[in-house]
């Protein structure tokens, strides 16, 4: 079990070292075999991972990887977490005190009724499901950003934009209030801006290196 974990950690470490340290990565791999034989593979692998992470800012690919992790962990995943927390608290059906707060923040009027009719309430779980899919989409998007798979990230973005527009249209009909699309819109903006900026920066850096 720990041997498998050690090998996985070692793979991660070697992948993070970058092309200018390829010889060192091969050297570490060879010594890992010795450490694993002595039963110290896991500690050795974690040490190599620490080395690789320490080396990241020192090379071009490392800096780009750091930027991708920073955006994914610092912006896209928190946006997904905010949406998930919203769902937990009843989103897209927002109770009046919270709805007022969100409306004030977004500077939009709220005409949310204090109660919701049974017919309209039927649509709320579907809207919540849409929002849940959006959370899943953001998590996938973060993964593709980390992998620098821009085409898949863009496909997820398009689906996310479509889901947000659908949510806005149905929210307008079902609960007659746009307060419930404020968070998804903010998440969409954060995702679109960060991915577009990252992709542009990556393309620019790669062109400069080439």
């Amino acid at each position, binding site marked *: 079990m720990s041997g498998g974990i050690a090998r996985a950690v070692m793979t991660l470490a070697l992948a993070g070292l970058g092309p200018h*340290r390829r*010889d*060192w990565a*091969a*050297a*570490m*791999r*060879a*010594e890992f*075999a*010795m*450490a694993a034989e*002595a039963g110290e593979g896991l*500690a*050795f692998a*974690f*040490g*190599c*991972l*620490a*080395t690789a992470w*320490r*080396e990241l800012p020192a090379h071009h690919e490392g800096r780009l990887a750091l930027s991708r992790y920073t955006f994914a962990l610092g912006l896209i995943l928190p946006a997904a977490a905010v949406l998930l927390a919203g769902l937990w608290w009843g989103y897209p059906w927002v109770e009046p005190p919270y709805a007022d707060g969100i409306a004030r923040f977004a500077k939009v009027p709220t005409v949310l009724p204090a109660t919701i009719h049974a017919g309209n309430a039927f649509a709320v779980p579907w809207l919540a499901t849409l929002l849940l899919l959006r959370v899943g989409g953001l998590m996938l998007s973060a993964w593709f950003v980390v992998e620098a798979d821009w085409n898949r990230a863009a496909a997820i973005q398009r689906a996310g934009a479509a889901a947000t527009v659908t949510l806005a249209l149905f929210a307008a009909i079902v609960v007659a209030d746009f307060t419930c699309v404020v968070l998804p819109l903010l998440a969409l903006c954060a995702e679109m801006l960060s991915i577009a900026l990252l992709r542009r920066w990556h393309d620019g850096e790669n062109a400069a290196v080439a």
Partner: protein
Amino acid sequence: MLAVLAALYDRAPERIHGYDLMKLTGLKSGSLYPLLMRMSDRGLLASEWCEPTAPGRPPRHAYRLTARGVALAQAARNDPDSSGLVGAKA
């Protein structure tokens, strides 16, 4: 860095593998490899690939001090205060 310099200097002209160097110095891989990389970048360390000792094993990197590295190790041994390595991070 002093421990690595001393270990390599004491074994010169023998070359030492990374894992053996860990055992000799007591350093973990997370401390040893950044040091080795830095020493190599500064021209203090030379490395070469050694043929595997058993079939199915990958070739291993072995390290020795360059002339500059030997001079620094000697200076550090004779006068640790003036070598500039006292207080240097491991």
